[in-house]
């Protein structure tokens, strides 16, 4: 999470004018008039959907989960409490953390319900959306595709908490503090979780390349 703005610590009298949550105005508008929730929905749809897709590995399941997340968020919005602190900085969004706590629960329930149902490989599911650079270099493109496939395979092999932390960090570009709030862990624990997850991915990618060097796990 960002520190004080431009490295300057706000004096107590300034704290009252600091914008704590970048979504505060939109949240207040949606509370007064629920139809204004649309702005928050459009802003976070792709983030929630991508999180659900990486977690569930199925487009339809991800759509169902995304639908539940936003319906529940709208239904519970009157009881949402903005808990942003001055030290969280101007980019903090407790609404996003709150929304993703709802998403975490929806996805966890879906995963429990679908445990016995076979799911498609994530690299196949995401095949159309892989980050392939616009290039005419066929060899370079093949390397990128291979790397993406290997990275997704390594991600799928991770334990739930490590995979979830990496998806929130890389796909949703969340800070350690936000992930900690979503996963109900301390920031230090999340940092260690991500560090270990990176070690596991490095090991898998090295194995794919035939690299026998031992790495952190």
């Amino acid at each position, binding site marked *: 999470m960002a520190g004080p703005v431009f490295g300057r610590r706000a004096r107590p009298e300034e704290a009252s004018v600091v914008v704590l949550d970048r979504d505060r105005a939109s949240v207040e508008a949606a509370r007064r008039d629920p139809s204004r929730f649309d702005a928050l929905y459009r802003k976070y749809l792709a983030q929630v959907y991508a999180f659900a897709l990486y977690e569930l590995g199925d487009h339809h399941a991800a759509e169902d989960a995304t639908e539940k997340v936003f319906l529940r968020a709208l239904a519970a919005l009157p009881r949402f409490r903005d808990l942003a602190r001055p030290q969280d900085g101007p980019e903090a969004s407790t609404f996003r953390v709150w929304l993703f706590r709802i998403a975490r629960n929806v996805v966890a329930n879906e995963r429990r319900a679908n445990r016995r149902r076979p799911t498609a490989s994530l690299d196949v599911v995401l095949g159309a959306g892989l980050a392939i650079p616009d290039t005419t270099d066929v060899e370079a493109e093949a390397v990128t595709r291979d*790397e993406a496939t290997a990275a997704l395979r390594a991600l799928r092999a991770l334990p739930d908490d490590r995979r979830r932390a990496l998806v929130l*960090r890389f796909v949703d570009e969340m800070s350690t503090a936000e992930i900690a709030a979503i996963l109900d862990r301390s920031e230090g624990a999340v940092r*260690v979780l991500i560090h270990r997850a990176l070690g596991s991915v*490095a090991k898998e990618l090295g194995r794919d390349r035939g690299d026998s060097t031992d790495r952190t796990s």
Partner: protein
Amino acid sequence: MLEHEVEALVADRYLDALLAAVERHALDAPADVGLDPHLREAARALRRSLVRVHPSFRFEERLAGRLAGLAAAQSTPALASASRGRLIEFPAAPASLDADPLLGAILRGDLDPTDADAIERAARAPGARRPLIVGGAITSAALSIVGVAYVAWRASRPAASAAIGIPGGLA
């Protein structure tokens, strides 16, 4: 601070810089010399591979419509009454209530959607599947009514239609 916590902190700072580099269209960011190069390579591979995928436009608009329906219902006196534990008028009940069996409890404030334990308990409770059962009961009842109507219709025209329907009829 323990050694693995320091390593985790170094990796975390590198990730902050790497993800910020995306906005500058940079491929990499400076890293602390203490960062394991294999971890750095893994982080770069993940950054390139884990893309944010957008849902289809059709899905986005359909869900927007459902949210608008729920928002409109939230503004009506009928649903406001529901949040105080009274009956909901049937026409005001949004279709979204069928999509998620827990939504009614969340609307009433009986269930916090961010509470993992409460959501898990509610999802496992038999009542969580009630909409399907109600739907099935309605379907069964509808089929029964159709069946009774058909039998009554047949009973009112016994011989003539049977003779027409079966060549060389039973009569």
